[in-house]
């Protein structure tokens, strides 16, 4: 019995270690999106250097020609183009919000058969406790694999409920 339990624990550990050390495409995309969310989490109290570091990190998750079009439920649509546009958007958010927390509650990926491109659907939550504001929106990411790394080429709103 003990041998069986030990074997099962060992197999589970190997499985977890394999998933952690050598994630598949799905795992890599999830890791990238989680890292992007962390980089987009900013606060007014962060030093300019920290904000710049996070904005620079976020730049590394998108292609040079990436387009991010976001339409919050209330408020004007926002279009961010390229890496520089993303850097400026994160810097602006750091100035505007006392603390802006971004997280992805769920992520679902669809990887193309050639494993060079992918689509990811995410339930994103942006929250600012000081401003008593929270919004959950659905996002659709288009990703491309460049030099073995998944980069976001497009991000836009996704609507599960179809009005028309």
């Amino acid at each position: 019995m003990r041998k069986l339990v030990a074997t099962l624990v060992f197999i589970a550990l190997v499985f977890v270690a394999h998933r952690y050390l050598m994630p598949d495409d799905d795992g890599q995309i999830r890791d990238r999106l989680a890292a992007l969310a962390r980089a987009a989490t900013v606060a007014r109290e962060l030093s300019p250097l920290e904000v710049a570091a996070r904005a620079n990190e976020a730049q590394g998750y998108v292609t040079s020609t990436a387009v991010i079009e976001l339409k919050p439920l209330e408020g004007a649509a926002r279009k961010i183009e390229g890496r520089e546009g993303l850097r400026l958007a994160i810097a602006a958010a750091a100035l505007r919000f006392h603390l802006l927390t971004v997280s992805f509650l769920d992520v679902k990926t669809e990887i193309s058969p050639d494993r060079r491109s992918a689509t990811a659907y995410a339930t994103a939550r942006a929250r600012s406790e000081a401003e008593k504001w929270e919004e959950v929106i659905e996002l659709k990411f288009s990703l491309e694999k460049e030099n073995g790394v998944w980069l976001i080429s497009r991000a836009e709103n996704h609507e599960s409920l179809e009005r028309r």
Partner: protein
Amino acid sequence: MKLLAVRAGALAIAAFLFFTFVLLPVKTEDGDYTVVNRLAYLRGESPRRGDVVAIELAAGHSAVFLKRIVGMPGERFEIRKGRTLINGALLDEPYVKSRLETWTIDELTLGDDEYYVIGDDRGQPLEHHRLGRARRDKVLGKALR
């Protein structure tokens, strides 16, 4: 001690299964929490008009839309001056908390597995409200309020 551990493990597994397949705690789009009865429509029962249901999002169900069913499969649905019309007839909606007369959605016909869902608070402009067709397989269950 060993028996206690086995019982605790069994209890934890039972609780996990219960809160996954029977009563699913979910977070709504507004940041609130509710519980969804996943067995409500399993025994051949279909969602009914007026039911408040949880709609699964594209990425999963950690957060859901909590909406009321107003249009049933195959029906013609329309909103004119804030009022809902089903197959051309005005729908009585006592649950609506507030409404704007500016809401207009041209007539559309729902598919065989589609429901039209809307929230009860219709006091915001239409573009600030999430509403629309939801496929049957996206209805997670009936919300317990």
